[in-house]
């Protein structure tokens, strides 16, 4: 007896030690490549003084209010547009649904400058409406795919029962389906809100200087005015708003723990009233495709008619060497950087998720509290200005061996920072759903924690791992904010090349910019199509929260 008891304690100690080591890597990564640079640059702002004056300024709070209200509006639009699409992706069996699943992701990776210009073509004077719509445009995919992930697992019998009892379809949706989807909707909304509240390029182009947000003001004060204390003050407010959004998202996610029983149900052809929803989804997808089609048209049109000159020019470096490398090399750079970023993010994100699940299952409030803190900390990179991180790198990373400040490694590192939260959000729920009894049985039979993970967790979560890696890869392909600060001219990514080309006069450079943008879309569609093939073995939506 005593011997057996001793063995258990020893195993427990080893497990705790293992857990601590596992947790160390993601924590160290976040501390070195996120917290330290951000704290250092904010610290400079605080030591310069004047933070309180900015915080006391009424204009600051108008800025904050506009940021929050416009981000909330974009979130509402994205949710309203995303829900019918989610329904179609999850429930409907019609030709073209697979294609729609792939296409809705394209807006998510488009360079903001290009989308900004595309919306400017429709609303030449800019303003609040195109700004709100453009931010929603980017994020419909987040809502559609997150909610579809849960929707395809909802047991349809509850709705059918409600209908049998005489509820109208709308009432059945409102009282049965919507509450069940609530956590996924809230979780998606929190992420979309973060993206919208910190979006930069779109606000700059469509706000036309009249409408400013915390993010554009932080950028302006840091980059153009070198007013670090002003930027620090605004960052504080942004930070508070982000924490609030994260808290709301976390509360909503918690409710999922006791959500309705999940059961995978096969998609089928829509009946009667359901066609209205299909129609709404079709309209949304058509609207999403409009700017994309406009960009494609622009890439092949010249004042003298249709031409593929822009695409042909991608083999070169543009008029008078606008780029330092050819468009194709930029595409290759994008693929390479996104690969590195995905590897990094998967390593950090999976380890973090494993630790988070373990902490949640561990007894005691302390462990759970630690888990919740770590969960929130992992999301923070989504809510902190890229310029803050980028300028933070400048004042900190020279202390590391090899002076990483000018290293090409910085691009994948920064991209990984953006993807990690998404990876965690996708893997965590699935990992949590793995039956504890299976793992306990394996442990009792003498399997080491690593073996339990390999034999039980890995096979059960393989699909969402692939989906998370794929989604992360796609986000890294399109990432622009952090990349534009850090990419070196001899190694631009495609979005950076697009931005460079579009900022030079001349017909060919302009066409080439749009052609490069089309190339980015094609690469994205190909990547997403591949991922969806691997990620949804049974022809279903990807698992997880995306």
């Amino acid at each position: 007896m005593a011997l057996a008891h001793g063995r258990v304690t020893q195993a427990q100690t080893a497990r705790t030690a293992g857990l601590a080591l596992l947790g160390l890597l993601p924590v160290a990564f976040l501390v070195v490549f996120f917290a330290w640079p951000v704290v250092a640059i904010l610290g400079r702002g605080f030591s310069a003084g004047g933070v309180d004056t900015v915080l006391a300024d009424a204009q600051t709070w108008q800025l904050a209010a506009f940021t929050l209200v416009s981000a909330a509006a974009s979130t509402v639009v994205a949710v309203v547009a995303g829900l019918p699409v989610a329904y179609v992706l999850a429930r409907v069996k019609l030709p073209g649904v697979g294609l729609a699943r792939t296409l809705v992701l394209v807006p998510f990776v488009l360079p903001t400058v290009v989308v900004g210009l595309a919306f400017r073509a429709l609303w030449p004077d800019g303003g609040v409406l195109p700004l709100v719509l453009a931010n929603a445009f980017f994020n419909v995919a987040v809502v559609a795919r997150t909610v579809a992930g849960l929707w395809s697992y909802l047991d349809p019998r509850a709705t059918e029962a409600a209908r049998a009892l005489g509820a109208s379809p709308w009432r059945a949706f409102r009282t049965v389906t919507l509450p069940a989807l609530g956590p996924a909707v809230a979780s998606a909304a929190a992420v979309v809100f973060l993206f919208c509240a910190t979006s930069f390029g779109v606000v700059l182009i469509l706000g036309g200087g009249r409408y400013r947000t915390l993010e554009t003001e932080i950028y302006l004060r840091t980059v153009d005015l070198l007013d670090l204390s002003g930027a620090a003050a605004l960052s504080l407010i942004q930070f508070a708003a982000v924490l609030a959004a994260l808290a709301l998202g976390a509360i909503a996610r918690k409710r999922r723990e006791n959500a309705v029983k999940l059961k995978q149900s096969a998609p089928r052809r829509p009946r009667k009233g359901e066609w209205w929803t299909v129609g709404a989804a079709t309209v949304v997808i058509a609207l999403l495709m409009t700017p994309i089609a406009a960009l494609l048209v622009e890439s092949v049109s010249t004042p003298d008619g249709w031409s593929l000159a822009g695409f042909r020019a991608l083999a070169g470096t543009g008029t008078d060497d606008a780029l330092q490398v050819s468009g194709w090399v930029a595409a290759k750079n994008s693929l390479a950087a996104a690969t590195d970023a995905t590897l990094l993010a998967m390593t950090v994100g999976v380890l973090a998720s494993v630790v988070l699940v373990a902490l949640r299952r561990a007894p005691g409030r302390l462990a759970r509290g630690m888990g919740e803190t770590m969960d929130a900390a992992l999301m923070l990179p989504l809510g902190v200005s890229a310029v803050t991180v980028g300028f933070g790198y400048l004042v900190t990373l020279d202390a590391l061996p090899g002076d990483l400040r000018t290293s090409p490694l910085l691009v994948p590192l920064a991209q990984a920072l953006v993807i990690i939260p998404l990876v965690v959000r996708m893997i965590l729920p699935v990992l949590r759903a793995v039956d504890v009894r299976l793992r306990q049985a394996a442990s009792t039979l003498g399997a080491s924690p690593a073996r339990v993970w390999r034999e039980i967790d890995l096979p059960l979560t393989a699909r969402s791992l692939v989906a998370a890696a794929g989604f992360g890869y796609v986000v890294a392909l399109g990432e622009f904010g952090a990349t534009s600060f850090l990419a070196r001219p001899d190694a631009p990514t495609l979005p950076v090349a697009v931005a460079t080309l579009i900022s030079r006069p001349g017909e060919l450079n302009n066409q080439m910019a749009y052609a490069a943008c089309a190339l980015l879309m094609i690469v994205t569609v190909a990547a997403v199509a591949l991922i969806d093939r691997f990620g949804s073995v049974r022809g279903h939506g990807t698992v997880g929260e995306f």
Partner: protein
Amino acid sequence: MIPRTARTVLGLATVTALASACSLSGGSSGGDAQQTPTVTLVTHDSFVAPQDVLDAFQRQSGIKLKILKSGDAGELTNKLVLTKANPIGDVAFGVDNTFASRALNEGVFQAYTSPEADRGPQRYSVDPQHRLSAVDVGDVCVNIDPAYFASKHLPEPKTYDDLADPKYKDLTVAESPATASPGLAFLLGTVAKYGEQGWHDYWAKLKANGVKVDSGWEEAYTKDFSGSSGKGPRPIVVSYASSPAAEIGDDGKPRTKALLDTCFRQIEYAGVLANTKQVPQAQKVVDFLLSQQFQSTVAANMYVYPAREGVDLPAGWAAAAPLPQDPATLPADQIQAGREKWIGEWRSLMGA
């Protein structure tokens, strides 16, 4: 005993490190760095130089030049200020006269007088210690679409005052000085022309006359301006004196025109960074940027004029992009003292 998990972590970390290293080291040749000293030139995003000229420099000097682009002139200056104690490079190019004083006051650069500087660049000297050497000169000028005015039988505008003339109501698009460097240059041009007080009145008139303000050059030039490929609605835009050189049609003639009485001169400088460990090599890079060889590339590649005298310009520049004779300018110290204040005043005046 090391738990298995720990080994897994180490394994994963190693794999990640290796995988990253694999796909990233493709571009650089590691062995080279041992023999030839590498000098890092920090510059702005618009820096372009033909590879053969850079290669020739490496052959002649035995110095490998690494180029690090870092945003526009303002962002570049601010990054240099933030990293002055341990600079991200050895030599910098692209700090212009609108930001030169900030860099000089912060001690970003060290004194160096290039033997090449007496061939013209000295004309644009900003400080007696010669910490900065002028490399090129560009002018921000109002550009117009002559076809528009011809079709409306409207005389082409010529001066700042014309832009405020009701005849040209709702025809002008400019950039915000807060977010775009041509916008800042245009504002400085109006300060130089109308004085520290007078510019407020001028901009109030511009606003009343329907001037449109965009946040960046891209939107203004490619979406709102009618003379570019975007075919926007407005025939007057704030751009560069050299922009028409990029808008040459099939007939060999430029489709746009710069108004040479509405220009503000931007001078771009290079200098050796204060805390570099490779002073002599960095000085050689400054010499190279001022050399005949490099100077003859700047017009075609960066749409600016060489600071050196007697350098040939590309064919067609005389007609498409002549250098303005009498551009407005302001002393760097006055710009440094006024820049943020003017931008702030401009923003409240224009409600931007």
